[in-house]
C-alpha cells in the first residue's frame, strides 16, 4: 500500500481520524435545532477535517477542493438558506417561517425540518469560507 500522506504515522492518524471528524461534524450539524450544536460549529469541524488533510498532506492536492469549489459550496450553502427563506414566503409564511412549509407533518416537526435545512446551509457556507480562508493564508505562505 502506498502512503499517500508522506509519513506512515501521519497517514494512519489522518486516515483514522478524518472519518470520525466528518461524522462528528455531521452529528453537530444535525443536532443544531435540538441541542447544542448547529451549522456554525458543524461547519467549522467539517472544515477542520479538510484542513487537517491539507496540513498533513501538503499543498499539492486539496482533496478536490479548489478555491472556486469551496466558494461554490459556500454560495450553495447560503443559497440553501435563502432558498428556504423564500420557500416559506412562497407558501404563505414570512421570510424564514419554516412552519409554513407544506411537509404534511405537525407544525413543530415542520419547524424542526426547516431548521435542519438552514443548519445544513449554514454548515456548508461556514465550511466553504473556512477552507477559503485557509487556502488564502496558504497561498501567502507559498508566495513567500
Amino acid at each position, binding site marked *: 500500500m502506498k502512503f499517500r500522506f508522506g509519513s506512515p504515522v501521519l497517514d494512519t492518524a489522518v486516515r483514522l481520524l478524518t472519518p470520525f471528524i466528518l461524522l462528528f461534524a455531521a452529528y453537530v450539524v444535525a443536532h443544531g435545532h435540538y441541542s447544542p450544536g448547529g451549522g456554525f460549529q458543524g461547519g467549522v469541524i467539517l472544515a477542520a477535517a479538510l484542513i487537517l488533510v491539507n496540513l498533513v498532506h501538503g499543498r499539492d492536492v486539496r482533496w478536490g477542493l479548489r478555491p472556486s469549489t469551496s*466558494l*461554490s459550496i459556500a454560495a450553495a450553502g447560503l443559497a440553501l438558506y435563502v432558498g428556504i427563506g423564500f420557500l*416559506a414566503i412562497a407558501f404563505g409564511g*414570512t*421570510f424564514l*417561517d*419554516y412552519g*409554513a412549509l407544506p411537509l404534511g407533518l405537525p407544525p413543530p416537526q415542520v419547524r424542526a425540518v426547516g431548521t435542519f435545512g438552514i443548519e445544513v446551509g449554514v454548515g456548508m457556507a461556514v465550511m466553504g469560507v473556512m477552507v477559503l480562508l485557509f487556502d488564502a493564508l496558504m497561498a501567502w505562505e507559498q508566495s513567500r
Partner: protein
Amino acid sequence: MSAHLPVLMVVLPLAGAVVVPVVGLASARAARALALLALVLAHLCAVGALRVVLANGTWRYRLGGWAPPWGIEYVVDALAGGMAVLVSFVALLTALHARYSHEGRNPLNVATSHALHLLLAAGLLGIVVTGDAFNLYVFLEISALSAYALLAGGGARAEVAAFRYLLIGTVAASFYLLGIGYLYAATGTLNLADLAARLPQAPDAGVVGTGLALIVIGLAVKIALFPLHGWLPDAYAYAPAPTSAFVSSVMGKVGAYVVLRFLFFVFPAGGQAGRALDLLGLAAAAAIVAGSVMALAQRDLRRMLAYSSVAQTGYIMLGFGLGNAAALTGALLHVVNHAVMKACLFLSAGNLLARTGAAGVDECRGVGARLPVTMGAFGVAAVSMIGLPPAGGFFSKWYLVQGALERGAWIYVAAIVAGSALTAVYMFRVLEAAYFRPAAPSAASPPAEAANGPLFGPGEAPAGMLVPMLILALAALGLGVFNQALVDGVVAPALAGVAS
C-alpha cells in the same frame, strides 16, 4: 411578494452577494448585471415599502413568524423607509460607476467587488430596517467588514488605512455591543420597541446610563464624529472612487440614523438621552469648525472631501443635539443632501483622477475646460455643500439655523455659518483652479501611475462614469428646489411623535 418588501430589500442584495462571485467565475459581465439587478430590485422594494408605510403607518414584519420581542422583527416606519430608499439609491448609482474602477490597480476583481458592494448595501439596509438591537450589531459588522475590504481596494495606502479603520471600527462595534449588553441586563430585552417601553421602568439608572454612553461612543466612532474621526480621512481618501462615494455618503448617515433611533425613539426623552444629546451638540459644533479647517489645510482633493465629511457629519449631529422640530428636520434633510452631494463629489473626483491624473487641488488647474461635465457636476455639488440656494444644502442649513435660533443657541448658529464660510473657501479654491487658472504647463505632467491608468485620456470621461454623477448632481439641485415635498412627504412623518 409585496407583503414581504421589508425583508426582500435586505435579502435580495444579500443573496446577490452570494451568487455574484460564483457567477463571476464564469462571466464578469453577467456577475455585474446580476449585481445591478439585485440593487435595482432592492431599490424598488425600498420605494415600495416606503409608499406602503406612508399610506398605512409603521410596518412590522416578523422574521420567521416569531412574535417579538422573542423573534427578530423588521420595522419600517417613514424614517427607516426613507433611509432605505436613500441607501439603495446611492448604492445603485455608485455600483453603476463601479465598472471603471476595476480597470486600474484594484486587486479585487469585478465580481468580488460587486459582491462586496451588495453585501455593504445589504448590511446598511439591514441596519435601517431591523427592529432588534443585536441584529443591528450583526448588520453593522456586515457592512463594516465589506467596507473594509472595499476600501482596501485603492492600492498601497488604502490597505493600511483600511486596517486601521478595521481596528477602530471593531472597537467601536464592541463598545456598541457592550452597551447593548448593559441595556439587556437592565431590561431583559433586545427588541428596540420593547426597550423603549421598558427603559423608563428600568430599575438601575446607572446601568442604563453606562449602556447609553457605550452605545453613543461606539456610534460616534462609526460616524467619525470629531474628535473620534481619526480613521476617516485616510480610509476615504485612498479608496476607489465608487467605494469612497458609497461609503462616505451613506455609511456615516446610517450610523447617524442609529444615533437618532436610540436617542429619540428608544431612550425616554430628556434625562440621560438629553445629556448625551447636549454633549453630541457640542462635539458637533466643534466638528463643523475643526473639520472645515482641516479640509482647508488639505492639498489632496479627496482628503479634502474626506475632512469635509467630518464637518458635514457635524451638521447632522448638531441638528440632533438641538433636538427641536426644525433642527431635526434640518438634520434629516442634511442626511439626504449630504449623501447625494458627497457621492457626487467623490465620483467626480474619481473621474478627474482617472482621466487626468489630478489628485491635488493645485493639479486641478484648467480641468474645467477639459472635463466640463465632471467639473460641472462637482460645481453643483460644491455649491450645495456650501449651502447656497437653490441647491439642497442651503435648505438643510436653513432648518438648522432656524432650530438653533429657536433654542437661542447663538454659538451653534455661529458654528453653522462659520462652517459654511470655510466650506466656501475650500470648495471655491478647487473651482477657481479648475475654471479660472490656466492648465499647468506640460512640464508638470501627471504622476506616472495615473498616466498609466487605462482611463487616462484627453477628453471627458466615458458616459458610464458620467451618468451616475450627473443624476446625483441633478438630485442635489432637485432636493433644493423640491425640498418641501421631501420634508412634508417623508421627513415630517418620520419625525412624527419625536420632535419635542
